[in-house]
């Protein structure tokens, strides 16, 4: 049976240098991991305080996967991150206060209160806002890659999907089209082993989602999604391959969803031992100790970074809470686009 390549963990600093990250970059990655988790933890508090309407989702356990892939993307590359991929927004540079504003349905959120939670993106940062329907963004990401191919640009599209959503037709159609046309796209599967309460074996019949890549004519790679450097290295390889005209890759990041599907879900159906096992490879803790062992991160530097993140989040929360709720009449804005809407970098 088709077996995807299983990626090795990353060892030494030198290996990481080859992959294109110097020490500064590594500290930035660490900071982005803290920021990603920090945003979602603060969001959780806001939710419990009753300040977030509707539901609330986090990507706990998926921070390294989202940060690792986003770190490997080039400035002109584009992506369609999902509800577990806060790290992508963070790495691309979205301001945290805007995310809190989005959570709370305020006008300064990227969707100005029209949509909620992670259904947002700043298109100037090369991101396209997800819809709920999974994995409907994969054909869209494929279309971005098609545009790059038509224009002969050396840009790459990254499309995310969950292992559950891999069962839907859109995943198949997008990979079929991208594979037959060898488009510059990387399909990233956030495999957190559960689709709401549904286990993987009811969503696909292979060992790995990435095993199917070869039947679409490209390589499948399975990587430990809690190892940010391994994710980065594999994402980088895939993205640069696509950039060089080598076609798509399916990169499967294996993690465990460390919280319920959403805030209302206690995930009683996830076996305790499974959670305990994966708790041992917390992506943040894992990278922190790696940095201490391999890149002489010391207490001082660590506190400096953590402190900076904390201050940033405090300020962001304050600023977001000052953002007003939208005015009712804003409801009617922009059902149809205006020509001026097209004057954006990405529509260039």
């Amino acid at each position: 049976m088709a077996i995807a390549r299983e990626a090795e963990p990353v060892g030494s600093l030198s290996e990481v240098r080859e992959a294109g990250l110097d020490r500064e970059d590594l500290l930035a990655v660490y900071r982005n991991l803290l920021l990603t988790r920090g945003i979602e933890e603060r969001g959780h508090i806001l939710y419990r305080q009753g300040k977030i309407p509707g539901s609330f989702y986090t990507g706990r356990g998926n921070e390294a996967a989202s940060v690792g892939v986003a770190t490997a993307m080039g400035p002109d590359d584009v992506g369609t991150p999902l509800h577990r991929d806060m790290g992508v927004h963070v790495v691309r540079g979205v301001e945290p206060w805007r995310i809190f504003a989005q959570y709370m349905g305020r006008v300064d959120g990227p969707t100005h209160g029209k949509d909620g939670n992670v259904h947002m993106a700043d298109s100037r940062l090369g991101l396209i806002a997800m819809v709920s329907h999974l994995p409907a963004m994969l054909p869209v990401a494929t279309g971005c890659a098609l545009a790059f191919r038509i224009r002969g640009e050396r840009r790459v599209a990254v499309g995310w999907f969950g292992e559950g959503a891999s069962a839907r037709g859109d995943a198949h159609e997008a990979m079929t089209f991208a594979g037959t046309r060898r488009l510059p796209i990387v399909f990233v599967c956030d495999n957190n082993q559960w689709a709401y309460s549904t286990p993987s074996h009811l969503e696909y019949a292979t060992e790995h989602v990435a095993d199917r890549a070869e039947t679409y004519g490209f390589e499948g790679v399975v990587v430990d999604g809690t190892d940010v450097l391994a994710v980065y290295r594999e994402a980088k390889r895939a993205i640069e391959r696509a950039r060089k005209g080598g076609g798509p890759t399916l990169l499967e990041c294996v993690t465990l969803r460390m919280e319920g599907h959403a805030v209302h879900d206690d995930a009683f159906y996830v076996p305790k031992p499974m959670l305990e096992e994966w708790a041992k490879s917390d992506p943040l803790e894992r990278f922190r100790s790696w940095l201490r062992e391999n890149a002489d991160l010391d207490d001082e530097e660590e506190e400096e970074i953590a402190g900076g993140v904390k201050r940033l989040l405090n300020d962001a929360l304050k600023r977001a809470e000052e953002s007003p709720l939208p005015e009712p009449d804003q409801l009617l804005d922009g059902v149809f686009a205006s020509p001026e809407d097209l004057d954006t970098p990405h529509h260039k």
Partner: protein
Amino acid sequence: MAEKTYLQAISDGLREEMRRDKRVFVIGEDVGVYGGAFKVTLGFQEEFGPWRVIDAPLAESAIIGACTGASIMGMRPVAEMQFADFISCGWDQLVTVAAKQRWRAGTPVPITVRLPSGGGFSGGPFHSQNPESSFAHIPGLKCVCPATPEDAKGLLASAIQDPSPVLYFEHKHLYRRIKAEVPDERITVPIGKARIHQEGDDVSVVTWGAMVYTSEEAAKELAEDDVSVEIVDLRSVMPWDKGAVLESVRKTSKVLVLHEDTRSGGFGAEIAATIAEEAFEDLDAPVKRIAAPDTPVPFSPPLEKAFIPQVADVAAGLRELAEY
């Protein structure tokens, strides 16, 4: 008789149908172990086993198509969409295969699709929609939208035994908010028959689903100005009870058509156009429509409040008609 929430009535009704008819099975995302996103099928898998309460893959086209095939093989499938919004991914299977198979090939497709619909709690653009108008336009599909616990139970039984595909829209905002007496024994409510929710003489409201209660509130306000409002709860949108609607219009000569779905091309247009054509001589005022504006469903509370018709909007519309 026992008092039950709308949600409980659906759950009990479904369990009852599964107990009395082995051909009935449930399929959907997370309906088994989890008991469904809204817990309608909580405990069902323990009672009926994993092959009558099936956790489906995340694949709506497979879910609807599988129900179609199973129904043609003699089963009575009940599919659950996790939210009505996701039926857009099963659209082709419903409109192309299920809706037309009886007419084309003489093969009935007795399936029921449960669709948790509607807004009111910041679900946003993809967890709040009311897609009944889109399906009511497709010949071969029936659409029911119960407003009361009793109708929820009775229409579910009718939908399951109906030989045609039936889309069963259950309004999420009624799940726990609405409680009422529900007969303990099995009941059926005829598909295509309206219910007079409240009698009145001066103005008629034709509506369904959660808007029945919004009209009721508005009617209370008008009662204070001695305007008596008749509320026609359509219950079924396709087929819809033209007779009951025209009768109410003949009585009041003034009518408001109200729904939570967006206005342009919403099914309210069909009802208003039919009234205007067939009750032309009986009307003392233009047929008025109130519906959501032509936008997606917004997330932020002030926007959602502006989107979903509110009691004040309906009261204002009724006054306008009363004073016409």
